[in-house]
């Protein structure tokens, strides 16, 4: 049989290695480092709207935030991803009780993030903002250019293929991670998480009044601290260490008017988690 090796004259040196070696060979993996990092959408901002922290509060939290998004439409292009929230907590506990595996919990949780994305989409529809499924992401640059924003559900589209967590049954890669991976693959300008806290604390401030506020911290230090609880999924921190484009992520309080706008404008509001060596 004629193989592509006969055509190897057209291949780069890396290409020849990729065809002739095992992809599990570490030398091949290292060789891929020496390739450029093209940014697909360098001007886009990924904004994640929390499920429990924002959407579950209803009008009092969502209306002002929608207005703030609309006010920024001409100035900043945004991919708006949504979290899941209390209905996901309900169906996770029910599904765990029924003995269902993590991959099934992901399918169920995705539906909740989808509901929240639909609701946000209804509120933004009059401005021409579409809702886009993962399968439709190739149309996203067009809508961003034409309308300035799109809405998507934050869960990565892993479905039944979600890996198990180290402990327990809850999907380890949820909406924080899905939005982070979108920002990373497109080489986004900013990754902003809109929640109901001013940022990161040493413990959950809703439960511990002695917790201390952390305005700025490196991802390496945060991982080393191994906190009992976090404002963001641990998978985001793990992926951030290996990321090629996203150098920092920002957490703002969506209940405070103007915080999202400030973050979009590049101001250091809320908490910033940055990668060591990239501090400005």
């Amino acid at each position, binding site marked *: 049989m004629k193989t592509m090796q006969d055509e190897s004259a057209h291949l780069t040196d890396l290409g020849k290695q990729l065809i002739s070696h095992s992809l599990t060979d570490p030398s091949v993996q290292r060789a891929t480092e020496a390739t450029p990092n093209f940014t697909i959408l360098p001007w886009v901002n990924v904004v994640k709207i929390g499920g429990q922290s924002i959407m579950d509060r*209803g009008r009092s939290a969502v209306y002002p935030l929608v207005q703030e998004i609309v006010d920024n439409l001409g100035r900043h292009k945004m991919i708006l991803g949504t979290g899941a929230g209390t209905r996901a907590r309900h169906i996770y506990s029910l599904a*765990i009780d029924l003995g269902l595996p993590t991959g099934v919990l992901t399918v169920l949780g995705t539906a909740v993030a989808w509901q929240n994305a639909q609701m946000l989409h209804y509120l933004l529809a009059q401005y021409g903002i579409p809702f886009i499924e993962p399968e439709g992401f190739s149309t996203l640059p067009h809508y961003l250019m034409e309308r300035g924003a799109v809405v998507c559900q934050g869960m990565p589209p892993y479905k039944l293929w979600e890996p198990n967590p180290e402990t327990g049954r809850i999907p380890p890669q949820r909406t924080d991670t899905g939005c982070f991976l979108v920002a*990373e693959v497109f080489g986004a300008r900013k990754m902003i998480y809109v929640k109901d806290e001013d940022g990161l604390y040493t413990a959950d401030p809703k439960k511990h009044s002695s917790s201390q506020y952390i305005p700025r911290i490196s991802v390496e230090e945060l991982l080393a601290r191994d906190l009992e*609880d976090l404002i963001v999924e641990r998978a985001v921190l793990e992926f951030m260490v290996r990321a090629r484009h996203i150098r920092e992520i920002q957490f703002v309080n969506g209940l405070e008017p103007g915080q999202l706008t400030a973050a979009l404008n590049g101001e250091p509001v809320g908490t910033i988690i940055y990668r060591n060596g990239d501090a400005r």
Partner: protein
Amino acid sequence: MSDHSGAQHVTSNLMRESLMDKTVIARTEAPVSSILPDVNVIQIGGRSIMDRGGSALLPLLDEIVANQAEHRMVIGVGGGVRSRHIFSVGLDLGLPTGALAALSAKDAAQNAYMVSCLLAKYGFVYLEAPFVVQLLPAMLAAARGAVFNGIPPYSLWEHPPRVGKLPPHGSDAGSYLLAEVFGARNIIFLKDIDGLYSADPRTDATAEFIPEIRAQELIDRKLPTLPIEPAVLELLTRAKLARSVRIINGLVPANLSRALGGESIGTLIYQ
């Protein structure tokens, strides 16, 4: 139900809890039940089997058909050399890992579609990921067999790898994850090698065959090459249902039948 902070909650064990809290996460440890306990997941290697063409694939498909009455099979298929080629072009263009994952998934889809065409007259169907989620049990009840794209549907959302830019979850990881989520009876990887060796036996005469090994031990040994994706080993350490995988030589007649029959051939990697 509304709390002092204004959020409207649904009552549940996880209500108001942070899902990032380690104590909350630990509370979700509980038994998992198997969804499709009699299904065997069979993975046909892209590079090792498909790229060799009919001489390697057709006898294997005959063997699958011969086992159809006895064993319910879901067949994952890998991408092979076309994925290597598009990795080369994509990397040269500077594209990120997620884009490479989206691109290479089509190579495995092509291979899976060809396999489904060759098995169509025996009732096997090709299922894309959304149909695996919705229709697999119905298809298995009707046909006792289905073919799927081994590469998981991670696409642009593929994890950044620890080293380099190649997508860490290929068709081995995707087939394994499907076996784990359904609680399959077996997961068998068909490759062009008898199993796991301490080094590549094609280039190193001192390479020793390893019939059985724990996933963590294999990770710790840091072998220079492996017959399956390293991601599978990490997934195995966290398995709840699919606690072992078997690698066999798909070029040797009757190997698949023997593995389906429960014989200890090839290499078993277990939790």
